[in-house]
Structure formats: structure tokens, C-alpha cells
């Protein structure tokens, strides 16, 4: 009976986290005035209880030809599952923000490229896993190439 209960619980947790992913938006999407100067905001989707999701972010970039990584502080919003990312990486160079999230056993990842006018929504990539090193490098390449032109 106990096993059945645990099995049901596991199935329920997996079902809750089905399709766990990130949605990104401009700061106005958060409807929170404290986030108006954020670089972008994001929310989790597909996590039964959004408040239980664990999220983190790093900025990955190339500055003066050198590969750099900056751990970012993700600010939680007043609504569960909504977060803001403020720029704390250098203004120079080429950068992407690498988002990672877990909800129960489910994982989500996203790569959000940065341009001169802020985040580039159209080039953002979403994964059902944390982005791999090669996925990060692949996302950085066009930015570096574009900057050289």
C-alpha cells in the first residue's frame, strides 16, 4: 500500500512538472514596478507549484577575446514563478544569459542572447534540460561573429 502511495506520488510529481519550461518577456510583463529596469523577466511554466521551482542564472560571454562567466542574482517577483534578471555583467563584449531550473525531477534550460538594445527574444533557445557547454558556445558564436563584422 505504501509503495503504491509513493508510486502515485512520484507519478503525480512528474505529471505536475510535465512540460516544465521558461517563458521570457520584457520587464513590463512582470507588472511590477521594481522590475522596470530589469534586462528581462522570466517565468516558469509547467511546474505544479511554481513557488517550489529552483532557478539560477549565469551570464556567459566573451570580453576582449576572453571567455567569461558571471553568476547572476535572480530576483523573485511578487507572483510565484516570476523572476527578473538585472545586468551585472560588463557592458562590453558579447553575452548570453543561461537560465537553469528544476521542478521536482524535471529540468529546464534557456539561453537568452543579449544585444545592444537588450535581450534578443527571437534568438532565445529553450531546452528540457540545462543548456550544455556546447549549446552555450554555439549560442555565443553568432554574437561574436556579428561583433567582428
Amino acid at each position, binding site marked *: 500500500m505504501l509503495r503504491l502511495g509513493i508510486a502515485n506520488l512520484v507519478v503525480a510529481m512528474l505529471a505536475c512538472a510535465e512540460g516544465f519550461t521558461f*517563458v*521570457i*518577456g*520584457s*520587464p*513590463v*510583463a512582470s*507588472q*511590477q*514596478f*521594481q522590475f*522596470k*529596469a530589469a534586462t528581462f523577466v522570466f*517565468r516558469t511554466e509547467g511546474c505544479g507549484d511554481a513557488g517550489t521551482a529552483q532557478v539560477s542564472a549565469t551570464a556567459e560571454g566573451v570580453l576582449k577575446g576572453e571567455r567569461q562567466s558571471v553568476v547572476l542574482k535572480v530576483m523573485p517577483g511578487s507572483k510565484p514563478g516570476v523572476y527578473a534578471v538585472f545586468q551585472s555583467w560588463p557592458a562590453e563584449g558579447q553575452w548570453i544569459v543561461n537560465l537553469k531550473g528544476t521542478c521536482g525531477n524535471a529540468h529546464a534550460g534557456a539561453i537568452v542572447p543579449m544585444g545592444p538594445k537588450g535581450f534578443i527574444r527571437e534568438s532565445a533557445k529553450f531546452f528540457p534540460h540545462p543548456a550544455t557547454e556546447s549549446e552555450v558556445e554555439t549560442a555565443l558564436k553568432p554574437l561574436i561573429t556579428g561583433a567582428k563584422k
Partner: protein
Amino acid sequence: MFGRHIRHQVAGLLDGELPLAERKRIEDHLAVCGLCRAEREQVRAGMSMLKHLPPAQAPDTIWNAIEAAWPERQQRSGAWFRQGFRPWFLAYAALVMVAAAGIAYWTRVHHHERQWEVVKIQVSAGGDKEPIRKVAGVGPGDWIETDAASSARIRVGQIGSVDVGPNARLRVVATSPLEHRLTLERGEIHAKISAPPKLFFVETASATAEDLGCEYSLKTDVQGLGVLQVTLGWVSFQWKGIESLVPAGASCRTRPHAGPGVPYFDDAPEELRNALENLSGERSFDTILRVARVRDTLTLWHLLARAGVSDRVRIYDRMAALTPVPADVSREKVLELDAKTLTRWKEALAWTW
């Protein structure tokens, strides 16, 4: 809608002393009441400041004042009062001092919050590179006017600043902690506000810009022909029951006797922007629906409430084709212009704006 204000419960809320149900009721009220939100922010700021007040030594003269205030007790207790109860007396005096210091600090801070200050920048006749600067305090009823060669910066209490361009004329209407308001008669301003929403207002002849936590430029002529351009956050642009919600990256025109128009993103297709200029034209509407991108659902969402029933159906269908409609937003309710449903849809759409 707003129920009773919760001014007296704010301190308890911030101290975490209220029971859950009471806290929930107050938080619900705060979600819809700008006045109470502003009150909460003030109390929070005051409490934070009081925490950082340094302990102060009571001046000797305070004893005279306290003793004079308690003549009966002094007569009754005599020397006993002075010696036996001195520790209590000291504690009481310290309390009085802290309270007095707190009140003095509050008064100073609140006075500072109310204070508007203008820095006038005028290029000298000789064309010197360094402008002439004049600083002056302004209050309700004061006019600020710039000529072709001057501009000004107004410090709006402690909530932000307003840059006034050349050839502008504006009047300060209110400078209280709960409402900072000015009337822009003509010219252009750039406002940068870092306070909770609904504390800063700019009136023009045809619309009022209500700050929802933002940074924006507003230009108008005397008749009220103008344009609002938002660079950060949201602005509510209103006139006689018409409201346009303008997010960062978008603009909204306003016209005399018509009020704010439909907002559009600054990077919207030119065809769409031109069509908005002439909305009454039959083809304009078709053009807008045809060229609208996902992001232009901002424009389409505002058009819903301003279109006739048949056009509303077309707008809804176009919006639904551009981006999935959330499960809790029913077509029927949208077409009925149900306020709750429209707000819910706007909040979902904002993730694409």
C-alpha cells in the same frame, strides 16, 4: 471597490503582528488601493530610518521641561521622586527623547519629500559653453516656464525628476507625499520616477499621464495635441473614462476633445502607425489587422474596447491567430468587454510585448 483604508494596520502588517486572515484582507486591499500602498511605503521607509537613528544624549534642559509638565507629582514626591524613581525617570526621558528625535526626523524627511526644486539651465547670451544655473524651490500654484534658450530640471520630492525642454510652460498642482501632480500647458518633459505607482501625475489639455512606475517623455501643445513615449515601465494615459495603458517601448498620441488614442510600439510597421492616425477610414482598420505582428496585440487589445461589435469579433480572431488565447480567457467574455477577462488577457499578452 476599495473598502475601508488600512492606514492603522500598516505598522502591524510590516511588523508581522497580524493574524493570517487580517493580513490577507489587507494585502488584497493594498493590491487595489494606491493611497494605502503609498502609506505602507512611507511607514516602511520611516521604520527603516528609525532603526538607524543613533542614540542621543538628553540635554540637561529636558529635566526642567519634564518636571514642569508634572507639577503635581513633583510636589507630592519631592526628593523621593528625584532619588527613588530616578531609573524610571531616566527611562521615560530617554523614551521622550527617542520619540522627539523620531518626530523631528520624520518631519524633516516628509518636508524633504514634499519639496520640489528647480534647476534652471540657461545658455548665456554670449554663447558660453557653461550654462547659467539657478536653483529655486517651487510649490503648488507655481509656474515654471522655459524659453527657447533654456531648459530646467525639477526634482520631484524624493521620487524622481522631470526634465523640462525649451519653450515649455507648466504649473505645479500638488506636492504632497501621496500625490505629486503638475499641469503641462505646452512643451516637452521627460519624467523619471522611482516610486510606487500612482503617485505622480502630469495633466495636459487632453489627457493625464498617471505613473505606474516608469520613465517617459510627454509633449503637448496648448490645445492638447500631444504624444507620450514610454521608455521604462508603464504609464496610464487617461481622459474622461478612456484609458490607454502604455508600456516601455510604446507611444500614444492624444488629441483635443478626443483624449488618448490607441498605443503602438515604436517599432510597429509604418503602415500600422499611419492607419492609427486615421482610424475612422474604412481601410485603416483592415490595414491594422493585416500588418499587425504578435507584439502589436498591444494595439489590437486597446482597439477591442473602442470598436463596434462586428469589428471586435475580427480583432479577437486576428489576436487569436497571432498568439494562443489563455484557457481562462473566453471569447464570449472578451466580446462582452468583461473587465476582468480583458485584464487577464492583457497580462498574458504582455509576455509578448
